[in-house]
Structures are given as structure tokens and as C-alpha cells.
């Protein structure tokens, strides 16, 4: 009995590693999955789509850090992603910087921008916070679309100058390298998020999500912790923007809009807010469906349908929006929540959760910092 439990824990620990190895070796496979992908697995088109899925898995996870783990509903996450792609693009194309310098400078931007905006926006909470983030992101969108001085390319988007980029990341032939880059980005985000959510700050974030007032009563200052997670999530999104730029060879104004952030929200809720692999899976699934449903709409199978079926099916966003509503209504916790519940039912008992169940995060935090009744250890507000 005990052995089985240990085995199960080992399986759980090994699962991400196995997935990583499979994903890393994927480009060597010539498997053909008709219906799922157009070409064999290592054809450039399929790899490009998979790379996009991985990037958005990472960006969705960075959004989950804010929304799922800390309960901050930001409607401006697109801004930091856009800062990554447009920032790096302008440095490469307009100033002719090298790739390394451009990435370094954009990383600094990815810290400073959310730091400045977060320090203002986090002074209000709840819906007002959502609105301030929405409005600041809108500023970014307006600036990009206005095309000041012909810099951002307006609605056309901005193609990147390829000379400063190493040859390994240029061209269709090197799609496999871009795929590995995207995978590396996802691994980085996953590792960072796993590390921070298990750290002490991560416990405080989850406690803030459950009950911010009580965190304050425990003697902690939620503002600093919220700013920390806001900056971290912003930075991870900015890095995602840079990878996206290298992947696509340009920046598109679509990534600056509120619709883009809403897309991230849909990914996270679909996969399961507050779950790391859930958010990644949501991001991957959303990106895949968005792309495949567009192809499906023009396929003969759909074109031959009667109009009342064909017309709604021709819009991926209609299907994704409807799917999203159904998940919110009937599958609370998204895919991750569903899997958890199925697992519990199969085992017939509750497994002690790795993350504290809703409502217990604050208690756990209190035990950890030894505050409240019986807590005689002095502390300095962490």
C-alpha cells in the first residue's frame, strides 16, 4: 500500500520530465498524424504551430501566476508581451543592436514597465485594478496603432531586421531551432513559476487570493507581494514576447489589444486557474484550436454543411468562446480541476493536496510565520 503511494509520487514527479524529453525529441519524429496536423511532425509548418503553442503555454502560465495564484485579474497583460516583441524588434531593426544586447535591454524594460505600472495600479484593488491595467494596456495599443514617426508600423505590424539575428534562428529551414527555443522558454517559465509558488512568497500570494484582509492582519504587507508577482509575471510575458518575435520574424499589433489578454484569460480558465500544468495545457490547447479551427472552417467537410451549421463553425472565436462559457458553467477548475476530481473519485479518498485547498491558504501561512494566537516569534513583516 505504502509502496504504491511512493510509486505514485515518483510518477507525479517524473511526469514533467518525461513530457519534456518527449517534446525535446519530437522534431526527430516523422510521425504523421492525419487530422491533427497537416504534415509530418517535423515538417516546418507543424513545428511552427507547436512552437507557438509552447510559447503561449508559457505566457498563459505567467498570467496564471497573477490570476490563478494571486487572484489579481489584470486586463493588461498584453502590454508586457507587446513590450517584449515591439521593444526587441525596435532595438534590432531601428537601432541595429545585436541580439544579446537587445534581449538584455528588453528584459530591463520587462522589469521597469510592470514595476512602474504595478506600483500605481496596485494601489486600488478588485475591479478598479482590472480597469487601470486595461486602460494602461490600451495606451500601448493606441500608441502602436497610431504609428508615431513610422516606428511601429501601425496596423501593418513590424517585420524584424534579420541581419543581427544569428542564422540558426532565421528561415523556414531552422524552424526546429525556433521550436527548441520556444520549448526552452516554456521550461524556464515552468521552473520559475514552480519555484516561486512553492516559496514563502508563493504561499503569501495564495493567501492574498483567499483573504487579503487576513494577510494584513497577520502583519504582512500585501502590496509588496502583489507588486512582486506583478513584476515577475510581466517579465515572463516580456520574455515570451521576445521568443514570439524570433518565431514569427515580426510583431503584430494584435498582441497589444485587450482581446489578446482576454485570450490569455480564456487559456488559463480553460486549463485550470491556479494549476501550473493546467495553465500550460490551456495555452497550448487554445493556440492549437485557434489555428486548426481556422483550417477546419475552410475544409470541404465544413463547407458542405448546411448554412446554420457552417456559418458559426467558420469562426474559431465563436467555438472557443462557447467552449469557454461551457467550462465556466459546468467544469469549475477547468481541465486541471476535472482531472483532480476524476483522480479523487478513482481513489475514493482525498489525497492531501500539494497546494492548500481553497480557504486553507491563510491558515497555513499563519502556521508558517507563527503569527496570530500562540505565535510568540517576533517577525519583521518578511
Amino acid at each position: 500500500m505504502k509502496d504504491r503511494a511512493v510509486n505514485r509520487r515518483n510518477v507525479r514527479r517524473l511526469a514533467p520530465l518525461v513530457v519534456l524529453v518527449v517534446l525535446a525529441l519530437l522534431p526527430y519524429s516523422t510521425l504523421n498524424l492525419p487530422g491533427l496536423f497537416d504534415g509530418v511532425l517535423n515538417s516546418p509548418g507543424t513545428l511552427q504551430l507547436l512552437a507557438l503553442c509552447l510559447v503561449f503555454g508559457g505566457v498563459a502560465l505567467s498570467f496564471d501566476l497573477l490570476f490563478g495564484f494571486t487572484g489579481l485579474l489584470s486586463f493588461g497583460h498584453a502590454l508586457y508581451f507587446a513590450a517584449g516583441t515591439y521593444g526587441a524588434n525596435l532595438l534590432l531593426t531601428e537601432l541595429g543592436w545585436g541580439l544579446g544586447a537587445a534581449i538584455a535591454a528588453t528584459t530591463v524594460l520587462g522589469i521597469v514597465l510592470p514595476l512602474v505600472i504595478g506600483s500605481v495600479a496596485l494601489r486600488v484593488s478588485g475591479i478598479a485594478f482590472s480597469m487601470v491595467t486595461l486602460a494602461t494596456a490600451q495606451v500601448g495599443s493606441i500608441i502602436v496603432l497610431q504609428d508615431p514617426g513610422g516606428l511601429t508600423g501601425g496596423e501593418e505590424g513590424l517585420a524584424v531586421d534579420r541581419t543581427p539575428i544569428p542564422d540558426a534562428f532565421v528561415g523556414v529551414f531552422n524552424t526546429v531551432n525556433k521550436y527548441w527555443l520556444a520549448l526552452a522558454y516554456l521550461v524556464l517559465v515552468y521552473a520559475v513559476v514552480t519555484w516561486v509558488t512553492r516559496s514563502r512568497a508563493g504561499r503569501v500570494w495564495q493567501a492574498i487570493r483567499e483573504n487579503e484582509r487576513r494577510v494584513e492582519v497577520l502583519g504582512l504587507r500585501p502590496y509588496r507581494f502583489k507588486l512582486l508577482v506583478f513584476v515577475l509575471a510581466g517579465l515572463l510575458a516580456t520574455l515570451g514576447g521576445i521568443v514570439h518575435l524570433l518565431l514569427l520574424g515580426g510583431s503584430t499589433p494584435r498582441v497589444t489589444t485587450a482581446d489578446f489578454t482576454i485570450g490569455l484569460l480564456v487559456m488559463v480558465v480553460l486549463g485550470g486557474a491556479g494549476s501550473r500544468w493546467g495553465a500550460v495545457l490551456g495555452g497550448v490547447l487554445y493556440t492549437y484550436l485557434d489555428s486548426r479551427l481556422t483550417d477546419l472552417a475552410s475544409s470541404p467537410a465544413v463547407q458542405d454543411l448546411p448554412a446554420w451549421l457552417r456559418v458559426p463553425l467558420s469562426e474559431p472565436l465563436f467555438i472557443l468562446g462557447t467552449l469557454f462559457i461551457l467550462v465556466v458553467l459546468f467544469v469549475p477548475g477547468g481541465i486541471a480541476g476535472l482531472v483532480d476530481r476524476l483522480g479523487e473519485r478513482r481513489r475514493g479518498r482525498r489525497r492531501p493536496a500539494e497546494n492548500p485547498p481553497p480557504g486553507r491558504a491563510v491558515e497555513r501561512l499563519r502556521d508558517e510565520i507563527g503569527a496570530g494566537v500562540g505565535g510568540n516569534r517576533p517577525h519583521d513583516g518578511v
Partner: protein
Amino acid sequence: MTTFVLLSITGLGLAALYFLVASGLSLIFGLMDVLNFAHGAFLTIGAYGTWWAAGNLPGAGSTGWGFVLAVAFGVGVGTLVAALIELLLIRPLYQRHIEQVLVTVGLSLALVALVRAVWGSDPRPFPRPEWAQGTTSVLGANVPNDRFLLIVSAVVVLVSVLAFLRFTRVGLIIRAGVENRTMVTALGIDVRKAFTLVFAIGGAFAALAGALGGIYLGSISPGQGTSLLIFAFIVVVIGGMSSITGTAAAAVLVGLVQQFANYYAASGVGDLSVVLLLAVVLLARPSGLSARLA
């Protein structure tokens, strides 16, 4: 002077459009704590409903009473859709505000995509009655007539909403519900009926804004509602989230600031200054212009 008058009246016209969208948002948020992202879709539905009726509905047309009938049809469709959404999708999630907001987010995606699937993503020319195409001279400025139509509609809506809230029993329940929903329920009144009503009213105003916005802009496209919605959100937040008079004041402020800054500075600066205005108001008074509801 002429420019000033023209800009003021156009700014007020824009403010009227914002108010029509924002008033419903603010009523819904005040009573139900739901920030309705589907409001932009109601606007799109109202606009396309009017446009469709003007071309296809017998008796309706693009001029005179026919056009009024077309607008009434658009508003009716918007109201119906809003009421159905509240009954079928929002009500089952009673008291779960985040989920309710998420459902409206999903609706905003799905409904707009549906409109795009049926009528395409390109802008469609919107029927404009002859009267609305003309201009009226005010203090030497030639002001397009549709601006007056917008302003008058917004004022009528404002006055009738205030009167409705002030003098009717349902209005009393809504006002009480905004102030303390639990207490109203404790008194044995089913607030949820008021929820449906408020959603329907909001949908009607948004649909009206869609139809009038079509006249104002001359064409309609599926994404139009969403872009207006962001400014309507800003208006609602500046106005204090749940106050109708606060929303009206904020709409006037935002409309004028946007119009003047766009003219005197550069195109786009007006939009930016509105965002700046929001930041300033929120930092100075986190609960918006009117801390207490009207």
C-alpha cells in the same frame, strides 16, 4: 469660437454615446457586482439589428418613421438577448462574481464572432436618415444633426432612468439593492427579478447606442462595440461604478477631454489623456467621482 462650439457639441455627442453604454454597465455593476463584458456585444447586436431591419423588415426603412421602426427593432433584439443571457447564463452562477464576469467575457467573444461569421468583418454602410445627414448652424458653427440626436437621446434616457429609480416601486428596490442587497433579500423581496430587468434595460440602452453610433460613424463593423466598451468602462470607473449621475458627469468629462485633446494636440492624444484622467481620478479618489450613489 466656431471651432470651440463645434468641438463642444461633438464632444457632448460622444459623451452621449458613452453615457448610453456606460449607464447600463453601471446599473448592472451597482446591483449585481458584475462587470459586463458582453455589453459591447449588445451594442453590436443593436447596430446590426437596426441595419438588418432597415433593409429587410417590412415597414421599416432608412428614412422617417421607417427608420424609427428599424431602431426599435434593433433595440428590441438587444433587450431580448440581454434578458435571455441573464436568465440562462448569469443567473445559474448567482453570487459567484468572477465566474459571472468570465461568462460575459466568453459571450463578448462568441457573440461578436457570430455576427462576424454571418455578416463578415468588413464595415457595412449604415442607413442614415436625411435629416441626420444635414447640419444645423449654432453660433456660426455647422454642427451635424446626428450629434443632437445623440445628446437628446442620452438626456431622455438619463431623465427617464432617474425618474424610474426615484418614483417607481421597482426603482426603489433597485436603489435599495445597490445600497445593500442582502438587506433587501432579508426583507423578503426577490432581487433576482430586478437583476433580469436591469440586464434588459442595460441591453436596450447599449442596443440604442449601437444604432445611434451607426448613424454617428456612418458604418458598422462587428468589433465596434468592443472598442467603445473600453471607454465606457473608463467612464463607469471615473463615475464611481454604481451611480447614474456620476456616470453622466464622467461621460461628459471624458467626451469633452477626448474631443478637445484629439483636435488641439494630435489624433490619439485624446484617447491617451482619457486614460491619464482615469489614473489621476483613481489615485486621488479611489472610489470615483461620486463616492456615494445618486
